[in-house]
């Protein structure tokens, strides 16, 4: 690797780290909601607090995902998809965190309650 490349790479890494840090700061405070989307359609929204404890299954046209919320932390514990990426994904708790099950076209994402992360 050449010196110039290392410098450029270092700059890119720093910028990305800054973006991640910024996302972390923005997502750190305020109300949080869990938005469940299947194939682009909103399926369910759950307000998350420290005391939210739930256990439910999401049924999509392509399969089933089992979701557990413990103290406001969302995790997919099992799914009948082939790649199990959603099960392996670390639990989501902060704004911008998301769990995606591409085979089922399912997205579980944490958004701020004031609607600042509204993409539609």
């Amino acid at each position, binding site marked *: *690797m050449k010196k110039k490349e290392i410098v450029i*790479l270092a700059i890119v890494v720093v910028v990305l*780290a800054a973006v991640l840090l910024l996302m972390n700061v923005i997502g750190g405070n305020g109300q949080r909601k869990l938005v469940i989307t299947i194939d682009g359609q909103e399926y369910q929204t759950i307000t998350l607090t420290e005391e939210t404890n739930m256990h439910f299954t999401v049924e999509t046209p392509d399969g089933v995902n089992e979701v557990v919320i413990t103290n406001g932390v969302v995790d997919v514990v099992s799914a009948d998809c082939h*790649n199990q990426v959603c099960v392996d994904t670390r639990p989501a708790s902060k704004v911008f965190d998301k769990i995606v099950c591409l085979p089922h*076209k399912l997205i579980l994402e944490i958004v701020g309650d004031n609607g600042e992360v509204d*993409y539609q």
Partner: protein
Amino acid sequence: MKRNSTRYLTFMAMMITLALILSYFETLIPAIPIPGAKIGLPNLVTLLVLSTLGFWDALVILIIRTTIVSMLFTSVLSLAYSLSGGILSLVIMFLVIRFLKDRISIVATSVIGATMHSVGQVLCAMLIVESFSLATLLPILILISIVTGMIVGFSAKFTLKHFNLMLRKGTT
């Protein structure tokens, strides 16, 4: 190497086999807990063939490899992700090698390729799931790509010496 020679066919078959083994080997490594993140070891083969033979040879290997992998280990849908990521990555790496030939190292090429692979996959996923919200995955994915791209890039750098030797031997 002539495209219709036995030597070429054998070489391509060997490279596809190597890519398949690397794909399988990759499934044995515990998953990185970020959706879509992988080390991308099979890209080593793409990179080597791209830098020694050429774009079309690398493309053929890429398409055959992803098709077989999706039939063996995953589903048809994941073929769309692997192909969109793989082709974007290959095209960009080809352009980088073509226009910056001596001014860029193979490691940097690999990093760019890995990054583009992530970008292509996320774009494809955004199209299929019909949601822009997946874009927030990009910063962390690109960061991981830089690391995995370096791993693959250094592997390619050390392999390339022997690779060239193997290609030259007995070539007519």
